[in-house]
């Protein structure tokens, strides 16, 4: 029952926000909702640690270590971002960023029947409501991904994450946000249709083994139990399609193209959720398929494909990071890079690879969401996302943000002592140990390229004299508090990981590697 409550809390928050009379009520509903979600995620994690797995409705909802970890990460990010969003959106509102709308700039046309009508409200309030309603729904869909045992339902949930987040991308209603949303929706749609095809094929490969016309025929836990008997040819095709499909959602190259657009257009807290929690969910889906495929076909076939995509993703992000002009897009390419890293870890496989993957997922979630929050601060202060216009000196203008930004950037490119170094070290160790010499070398090479780009741009932006004058954006305890909380978590993780969390991570790795 706990699972259901856990899943429904964000829906309740969404409903409350939809009917809340004031902005403050919406904010409260969100924060309270995510707070409860977070606590429940902790409880579920504790139960999983105690019992091994939790399930509901004959295994329709199912949580093992892997799901519990993803839920916990999602809930944490959602909570921090909801706190941040309060400060962020208030600032946006007071600076008038929400007032104008692309639509008012274009020709006046009456909306079609399909559109929810918000014409009578001032645009700012409507936008805020949109944010506060959609974010919980988005989170709901992500939690659904992690908890759905049925692969079909999982697919539905992932599709739902896209649909819920499209309008977060269009939040500002700029011309470019429409463009980004369109690309996001179309590419995401195509990608997920491939995943659906893959899901159908998995069902097909399993229907003779586990019986048809039952819901359980698509249950992952059932399929995983019979993985060795599944039809091999079908499974190969199914894995390919699932890899392409969930890979699109995770932003693996060459399906990554929507990512920089969507991340740079969404409001900072939403981008933070997209780039950390949603990436985790997409990878989660991929991991589930990987487990089936590797148990059915052996780890060789899926591993090789994953390595190829991992290398491609890491490689493609290097030049874009090197010549990037927009810091939010820079972060997006970092996410592509890290998706590649995690997929590489998965492809390397084995106990070490799986452990590295789970550690990296945890660490990356913290660091990347922190980076987007910092980027949000910078872009609100300087009213731009371009390096050229910031002209350096962030550390002078907003010292705390600047320092944290640089620190998080160094963390994300795998600089010790920060924790991502530890997981990346494990990955290369595992890859090298498994005899993947060329991928290891490429991993290190690309890592250096990414590092160079990040240091060049972010170092140049944070340090320096900076420009004088300009209107400062007032400090906000909401924003800075949530940012500092994440920063503290990042620093702490470098030296200490709570034992239960490590236990959870190990458990998740065990789910993957058996």
């Amino acid at each position, binding site marked *: 029952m706990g699972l259901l409550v856990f899943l429904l809390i964000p829906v309740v928050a969404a409903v409350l926000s939809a009917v809340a009379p004031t902005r403050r009520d919406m904010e409260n509903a969100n924060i309270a909702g995510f707070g409860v979600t977070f606590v429940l995620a902790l409880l579920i994690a504790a139960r999983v640690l105690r019992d091994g797995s939790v399930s509901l409705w004959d295994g329709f909802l199912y949580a093992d270590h892997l799901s519990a970890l993803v839920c916990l990460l999602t809930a944490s990010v959602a909570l921090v971002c909801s706190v941040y969003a309060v400060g962020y959106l208030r600032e946006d509102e007071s600076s008038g960023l929400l007032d104008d709308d692309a639509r008012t700039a274009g020709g006046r046309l009456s909306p079609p029947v399909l559109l929810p009508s918000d014409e009578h409200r001032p645009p700012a309030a409507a936008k805020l409501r949109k944010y506060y309603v959609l974010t919980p729904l988005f989170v709901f869909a992500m939690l659904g991904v992690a908890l759905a045992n049925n692969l079909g339902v999982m697919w539905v949930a992932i599709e739902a994450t896209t649909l819920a987040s499209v309008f977060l991308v269009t939040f500002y209603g700029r011309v470019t946000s429409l463009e980004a949303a369109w690309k996001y929706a179309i*590419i995401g749609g195509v990608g997920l249709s491939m995943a659906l095809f893959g899901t159908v094929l998995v069902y097909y490969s399993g229907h003779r083994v586990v019986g048809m016309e039952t819901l359980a025929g698509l249950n992952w836990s059932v399929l995983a139990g019979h993985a060795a008997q599944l039809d091999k040819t079908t499974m190969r095709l199914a894995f390919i399609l699932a890899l392409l499909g969930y890979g699109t959602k995770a932003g693996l190259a060459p399906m990554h193209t929507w990512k920089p657009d969507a991340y740079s257009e969404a409001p900072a807290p939403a981008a933070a959720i997209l780039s950390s929690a949603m990436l985790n969910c997409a990878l989660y889906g991929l991991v589930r398929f990987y487990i089936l495929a590797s148990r059915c076909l052996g780890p060789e076939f899926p591993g090789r494909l994953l390595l190829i995509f991992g290398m491609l993703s890491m490689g493609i992000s290097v030049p874009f990071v*090197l010549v990037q002009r927009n810091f939010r897009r820079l972060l997006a390419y970092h996410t592509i890079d890290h998706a590649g890293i995690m997929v590489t870890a998965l492809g390397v496989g084995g106990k070490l690879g799986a452990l590295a993957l789970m550690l990296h997922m945890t660490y990356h979630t913290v660091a990347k969401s922190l980076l987007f929050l910092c980027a949000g601060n910078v872009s609100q202060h300087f009213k731009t996302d371009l390096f050229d216009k910031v002209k350096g000196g962030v550390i002078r203008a907003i010292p705390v943000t600047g320092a944290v930004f640089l620190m998080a950037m160094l963390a994300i490119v795998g600089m010790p002592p920060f924790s991502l170094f530890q997981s990346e070290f494990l990955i290369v160790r595992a890859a090298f*140990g498994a005899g993947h010499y060329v991928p290891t070398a490429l991993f290190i090479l690309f890592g250096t390229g990414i590092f160079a780009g990040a*240091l060049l741009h972010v170092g140049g932006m944070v340090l320096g004299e900076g420009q004088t004058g300009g209107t400062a954006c007032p400090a906000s305890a909401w924003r800075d508090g949530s940012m500092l909380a994440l920063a503290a978590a990042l620093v702490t993780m470098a030296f200490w990981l709570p034992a239960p969390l490590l236990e959870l991570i190990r458990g998740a790795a065990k789910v993957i590697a058996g």
Partner: protein
Amino acid sequence: MRWELTRFSPGGLNAPRRARILAFGLALAGALLEIAAAAVGVLAPAGAVFSLPFGVELFSWTVRLNPLSCYFNLALGILAAAVSIYSFGYLRDMEGRRNLGVLGFFYNVLLLSLTLVFTAANVFFFLVAWEVMALSAYFLVSFEHEKEATRRAGTVFLIMSHAGTGLLLVGFLILAQAAGTLDFAAFHHLASKLPPSQQGLVFILFFLGFGVKAGVIPLHVWLPAAHPVAPSNISSLMSGIVIKTGIYGMALVFFDFFDAPPVWAGMVVLCAGVVSALLGVLYALMEHDLKRLLAYHSIENIGIILIGFGAALVFRGMGHPELAALALIAALYHTLNHAIFKGLLFLGAGSVLHSTRTRNMEEMGGLIRRMPVTALCFLVGAVAISGLPPLNGFVSEWLTYQALLAGFGSTAELTRVAFPIAGALLALTAALAAACFVKAFGISFLALPRSEHAAQAQEAPVSMRIGMGILAAGCLALGLGATWFLPVFDTITAQTIGVKMGASLTAANGLVLTSGTFRGGAVSTVGMAAMLVLLSAIPGMFWLAWGRRSRRASGPTWDCGLPGLTADNEYTATGFSKPIRMIFSALYRPRREIQADYEVSLYYPTAIRFESEIEPAFEKHFYDPLQAWLFRFAGRMRSVQAGSIHAYLAYIFVALIALLLFGVRG
């Protein structure tokens, strides 16, 4: 382990004075403890291993103390103590203008990470310490980040350092793979058990990886950029000890991980050493920025150290452990010596900078009168770095020559010709270094002040003078007391090569240093110093006989009859090195530009502007094109993301079809 704990420092304190005193006071205390601990560790190796009580439990955060690490810690401790004292005064006038808490924080982090680099007991912890060191050095270098050049220098430094770490990582992975563990203890002589091709690869990876940090040419380009822009106390640490981490790493890999490396590997190191030494000093000669000049000399001295390493490697490969030990001792002794005198020189340059606000030697001059103590200390450092007796630089260079000399006689292959050639080029290097420091000291400190700042210069505060004085005394002590110090190396050579040389290196009750028993050669710095004192009786006698009665007057310098000698008549730094610039013009490819304004006739110019610069060969012919190519390539890659959704869909489509066919076939 006790010194580790003192290194946690108070970053970001609001009261700048308290921050300064606390941070550097703690650093000083830590350094002193470290000297004590390292001295004990070197003399009585206990082989201690400690696990630090923190860190993610997946990895072991373990340190070990062995003679080699203690030796480097000793160098670190001495330098850190002097620099910490120096920093009290040096930073005083930055108070209020800059956040000294941050500086103190990273300064302490740097010291801590250096300690950990020298003591880390496994791959993981070593890499963590290594990168933290690079990172803290980056922040210290970028401390005055308002300047574009500073930021750029810091960025180049960190990027190159990181790339080097990548190479190290691969090397470590190969070893860890063979050992099945990450512990350094398991790597002992392991590399020599690998198949030959892997041995070569491991060697090259480590040499390049550590070479970046050490500043070996052609991996040096970050060094002359980064060292000068840092605050001078930091420059002193950077040149004194941070680049020595590369040397430590090489020592660890070449002499601990390898048993007997391939002979060609030693030759590679020897050649790299010669090239670095020679080119380093040649580039140094062309500088008139005092700190850049010193930075290039760091490259030179790293080259000298590598000559010793290379010789040791060749000897080891050929089965002459005693010779290898001699060469290793030479290299390690030079490492310590360089830490001391280069630290001293940078502190001296810092005092000058502190007082004249310029690093340009052409604007200094005459400082010997305004800053007598600084000048004297700088002179000691200059004599030491030029390898002149009886100071410490001479001792280690002498040992290096002896090793090279012994090498020729003890090996049979044609390659042995490399040793005398290396010796000859080392002599050239040393002579050029002397020329360079005549220029550096002569132009900066002697004759007339060349600018208003120089004329108004003030002697450095007491703490700075103490800091420099300690290191100057160190130069003297390590020079005169070499024979007493050298037994220290017994434990190190026993650990790495398995022989003890200390007893055969000294003779005559420890007054004379010999090159061991095989190929004779003796020198005594103490003896020389004593003789110099005794011999001064001769001019003393002359003075008693005639000089007392002679008249000593002071008058103007001969000015060719022009009215009055001014600073404009003095030889400039650029002028001083002109003959060398002309002689080595094939290397420098100098470019000069003379612009004369005249009113009446070309022969009576009213103003002349002279501009001369040399071509930075490695930057121009390798790094710049590489960078340009990279960015051009990256720029071209941008067309992948050109905004067309149709193209984006097509990528996925192609991937889909390719994978479908792949999935069916294979």
